[in-house]
């Protein structure tokens, strides 16, 4: 069954990607990209990567698509036909593809438990992490403890992206509350949005603190919380949203999250352990690990929430500007 689903999904992916190449209406392209993300997230679920699917759905289909749509609102939705350069790209792609196919010939069999990838490092994560770290979600264990440094880097990347977007687009000013915007004609939408936005925030908190046991964690929670506010901004207008969460606060929050994460590592340093070694945070190493993971997940969640929302604000501020003019 899983194989059939896999194949069907891959087929749909291929069709979607193929259409994206040729469709000139960028609006459609972006929507199809949303579908592409959804489909790939389904594949991730099908291949047991639930945390990844969670993230891909929230980020790829959610944030990326919203940002792309926001950009289209500013740049126009038609791709102009280009007469030149199809041969060279095609050639490059064919060569690259051929190289990859060549590479697959010696690849380990798909799904074979005896693959080297499953034999060397991974068994320890699977077998020992529930005892060493004390939480059932191995992905969270690896992410937040064994490879916490990667995740610190990831947080820095999000922060860097926020810095980049802010320096390029700047944050909207707070004092534009007078201008009515948003989907103001959609009364039903406004009512429903008011009802579900608290639900989403609640769900985000659940994902934040349930990440140890189920799929999810700081990153996903941050994105979902940001999604709630993005929804708010979309329905009620950016000025309203900036009143709820002011941009300056967001900027500070994004910075704070990184500091919380790195600070946790520095605390370990002061407790004469290696950087990001949580075992020393409590008497019991396992409890220490747990405390550490909660702390850094909080840092990740705050940074991601603030950074994503910041980025959205920056884009929305631009569309708002265009709208006024």
């Amino acid at each position, binding site marked *: *069954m*899983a194989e059939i*689903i896999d194949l*069907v999904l891959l087929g*749909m992916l291929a*069709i*979607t990607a193929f*259409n994206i190449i040729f469709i*000139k*209406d960028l*609006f*459609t392209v972006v*929507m*199809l990209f*949303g*579908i592409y993300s*959804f*489909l790939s*997230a*389904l594949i991730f*679920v*099908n291949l047991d990567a*639930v945390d990844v*699917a*969670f993230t891909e*759905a*929230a980020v790829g*289909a*959610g944030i990326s*698509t*919203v940002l792309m*749509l*926001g950009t*289209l*609102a*500013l740049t*126009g*939705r*038609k791709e102009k036909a280009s007469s030149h350069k199809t041969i060279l790209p095609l050639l490059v792609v064919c060569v690259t593809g051929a190289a990859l196919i060549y590479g697959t010939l010696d690849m380990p069999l798909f799904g074979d438990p005896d693959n080297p990838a499953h034999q060397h490092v991974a068994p320890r994560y699977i077998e020992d992490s529930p005892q060493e770290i004390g939480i059932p979600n191995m992905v969270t264990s690896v992410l937040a403890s064994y490879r916490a440094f990667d995740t610190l880097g990831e947080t820095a990347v999000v922060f860097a992206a926020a810095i980049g977007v802010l320096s390029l687009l700047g944050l909207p000013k707070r004092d534009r509350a007078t201008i009515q915007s*948003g*989907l103001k004609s*959609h009364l039903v*939408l406004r009512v429903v*949005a008011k009802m*579900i936005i608290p639900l*989403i925030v609640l*769900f985000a908190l659940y*994902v934040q603190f*349930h990440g140890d046991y*189920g*799929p*999810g964690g700081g990153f996903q929670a941050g994105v*979902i919380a940001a*999604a709630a506010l*993005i*929804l708010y901004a*979309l*329905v009620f207008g950016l000025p309203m949203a900036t009143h709820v969460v002011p941009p300056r606060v967001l900027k500070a929050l994004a910075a704070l999250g990184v500091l919380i994460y790195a600070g946790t590592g520095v605390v370990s340093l002061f407790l004469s352990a290696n950087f990001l070694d949580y075992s020393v945070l409590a008497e019991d190493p396992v409890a220490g690990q747990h405390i550490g993971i909660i702390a850094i997940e909080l840092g990740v969640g705050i940074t991601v929430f603030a950074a994503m929302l910041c980025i959205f604000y920056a884009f929305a501020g631009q*569309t708002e500007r*265009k709208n006024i003019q």
Partner: protein
Amino acid sequence: MLVLSATCIAILSVMALALARALKADTVYDRILGVNMFGTKTALFIALMGFLSGRPDFLDIAIVYALINFLGMIAVLRFFEYTAGDENQEQEK
């Protein structure tokens, strides 16, 4: 189990049809409709898959799907307002 599988396949075919609608549509609204339908069915599909694989605690993902689908729809509608003025209804097929 068989019923679950059958339902899965049915939903999968609905997804395929919705996708086809999104790819081949007369108006941009039809596209959006297809995309929306695709999104809701995907959420259902995930829920079914959770049961199929015996790990129903993945329902969180289905929630995210539903949420993101809604968000995406609103974003499409919102930003479509800006671009609709730019060009006429699309005509390509």
